């Protein structure tokens, strides 16, 4: 049946219910269904069963994601990896995000610390190396609530990372480091008298500056990035 030599209700029902019949084949099968009790029954059962299976779908526990990240971050790196630790760290960071299905990040075009920061922003996850060294800037005046603050390793670049959310729940990440952040691919210079740059990557906006401290802000929504910058300007310079 349906382009095959034999009538096979099970196979046809499996293909049909799985949505794997081509349009023409599906049309022929649907016509056939009207006159074939066997196929009708199998399709009915298949649909009902698929509906039951879909109910059982689960979401991975939030803690599991962190556990896996932690395990990967301390996993021994195979010997074929480049020896320089900075590169190793970059590979780990980029890989961890890639495997987590963080879409097709084009991070390889970015300097490793930027790629790692982008990855953290995309996944809204920080792999902590400890508590942040500096206090989190208070951005409540900008309508941003601090969600977490951690010490992180951006592919060899030590940084504090602070995640904020606005009232709509949208996240923005602020990285603060004693080290200057590398310039992102295709970045343009800031026009506000600050030695920094702005860039777009993977649908996210990045802004980097060095006053009042070395910072890098990343968010999907450019206005959130602006809010953080405004908040930093009004914040007292950390000692």
């Amino acid at each position: 049946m349906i382009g095959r030599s034999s009538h096979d209700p099970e196979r046809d029902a499996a293909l049909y219910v799985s949505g794997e019949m081509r349009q023409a084949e599906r049309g022929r099968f649907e016509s056939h269904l009207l006159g074939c009790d066997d196929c009708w029954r199998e399709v009915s059962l298949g649909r009902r069963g698929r509906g039951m299976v879909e109910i059982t779908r689960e979401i991975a526990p939030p803690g599991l994601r962190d556990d896996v990240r932690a395990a990967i971050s301390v996993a021994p790196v195979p010997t074929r990896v480049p020896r320089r630790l900075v590169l190793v760290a970059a590979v780990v960071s980029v890989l961890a995000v890639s495997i987590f299905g963080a879409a097709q990040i084009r991070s390889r075009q970015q300097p490793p610390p930027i790629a790692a920061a982008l990855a953290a922003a995309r996944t809204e996850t920080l792999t902590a190396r400890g508590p942040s060294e500096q206090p989190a800037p208070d951005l409540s005046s900008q309508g941003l609530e601090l969600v977490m603050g951690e010490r992180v390793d951006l592919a060899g670049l030590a940084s504090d990372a602070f995640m904020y959310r606005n009232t709509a729940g949208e996240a923005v990440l602020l990285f603060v480091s004693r080290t200057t952040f590398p310039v992102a691919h295709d970045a343009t210079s800031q026009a506000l008298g600050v030695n920094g740059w702005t860039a777009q990557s993977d649908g996210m906006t990045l802004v980097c500056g060095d006053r009042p401290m070395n910072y890098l802000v990343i968010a999907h929504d450019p206005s959130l990035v602006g809010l953080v910058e405004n908040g930093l300007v009004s914040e007292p310079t950390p000692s």
Partner: protein
Amino acid sequence: MGAMDLVYNIARRMVPRLEDAQDLVQETYLAAFAAWVKGRKPDRVEPWLATICLNLARSRYRRESRRPQEVSMEFAQDVADISDPEREALASLDAAALRRAMWTLGEGQRVALALVDISGLSTSEAAKAMGTPRGTVLSRLHRGRRSLARLLGDQVREREA
């Protein structure tokens, strides 16, 4: 469905204990990490992770775990009062009870359902991950669906009797 959820759902249907499933997810990612660093770059991450997860489960857990205990059909008692047949019965089924019911299926059927109906892989991708011909996957898929559907039908009839 994200890759982590995909692996978790497969793991949950490969090993009965929640803790073992979480360990399996972690081992899957560590194995993927090692392979990735060595230069393995799959076209699609999801089927690749599914394959790693299945292989690990088979090699490590099958020996250790006893065969999953048969789950009684008592999950039918979890069904709320049903006045209208199929749709309401389906909506009223408890997901946890259905998960237990999936353990009444053979491993092949359970894995096929997990890969295709839960994780969204194509039957070709599932066949590759399972190391079986596509026709076998189609057969297992349909028979697994049908077994669960008949369970539901039995419940409905019992309720209506």
